[in-house]
């Protein structure tokens, strides 16, 4: 077919009229995370205690939570952090606005942090690579097995408005980590696991941006 063929020209004209090409553009864009909490509405954060389901011996989970998360809230959200332990009888209390309203003395911009916490520890046997066959050693088969400490932190957090008693944030976290040291200290493990919770907790609160894909339409 010759290049100046009239039919080819018509085809080109038709394509020009239609526009041709793609109809969309895929983009990667940093989008803020949705936050149900507006930190600017509050000035004080009150740790009112956690219902502790389980904690390792010698570790006060309530104290550890306050000591770890308190400074984080102060630093990141500029809240004044205080502790006001409340007798928490059951989980139903978290959803009782009257109770939380009654705790708030005045029209202060108070946010309560409470919830349910559990740090559990278990020892597991882990199979290591290949067990070396050694005819001289009667315990040779056990070389392939080692003890591991496994820590799990369950944290169900509630952030509650002092003025209305309304729950503004309700998040459930569960983090697990295994340690090769069978005598791993529980407070160190808590620190590791709380770090993971912190990342997941503050990302939405601070509306931190995350890379996401979206499609823009060209026509």
């Amino acid at each position: 077919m010759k290049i100046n063929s009239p039919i080819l020209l018509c085809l080109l004209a038709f394509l020009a009229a239609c526009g041709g090409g793609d109809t969309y553009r895929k983009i990667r864009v940093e989008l803020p995370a949705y936050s149900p909490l507006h930190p600017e509405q509050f000035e004080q954060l009150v740790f009112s205690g956690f219902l502790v389901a389980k904690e390792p011996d010698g570790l006060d989970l309530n104290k550890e939570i306050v000591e770890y998360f308190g400074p984080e809230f102060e630093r990141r959200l500029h809240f004044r952090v205080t502790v006001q332990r409340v007798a928490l009888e059951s989980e139903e209390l978290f959803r009782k606005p009257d109770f939380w309203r009654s705790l708030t003395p005045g029209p202060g911009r108070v946010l309560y942090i409470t919830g349910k916490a559990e740090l559990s520890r278990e020892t597991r046997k882990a199979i290591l690579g290949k067990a070396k066959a050694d005819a001289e050693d009667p315990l040779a088969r056990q070389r392939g097995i080692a003890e591991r400490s496994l820590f799990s932190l369950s944290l169900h957090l509630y952030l509650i408005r002092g003025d209305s008693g309304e729950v503004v944030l309700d998040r459930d976290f569960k983090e697990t980590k295994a340690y090769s040291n069978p005598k791993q200290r529980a407070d160190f493990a808590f620190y590791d696991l709380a770090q993971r919770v912190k990342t997941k907790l503050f990302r939405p609160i601070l509306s931190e941006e995350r890379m996401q894909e979206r499609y823009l339409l060209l026509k």
Partner: protein
Amino acid sequence: MSKTTLTAIALAFLGISLVFGCAGPRLKDQVGFGIWAADNDLWDEAVFRWKKVLDQDPQSVAAHNNLAVAYEKKGLWEDARKEYEAALKVAPDNPWVKLNFKNFKDNLKPEKSDKKGKAAQDENK
């Protein structure tokens, strides 16, 4: 019909097509300019362009969809939702709008906790 006549008709058709293709009251240009602005992180400019398209053509799926993405970028969640819904009302089967809307709704959900744990990724390796 001679070859010359055919060529003349084709050229005339090409000319008319180009005139109509480029005219389309420059709406495509506005959509494209908005995309260029978004590419250059000028989201306010992009919003301005896509709103302009909607002023002239309230049924523009591209403008509704793209505006929704811009509103997401600005953290205006309700506005974004309205624009996605408007786009889907006009083009309920558009796969790209549907995908964007799904991703938008996922972004509003709380981040899933690692229920299974990450034990295997840690020191247990």
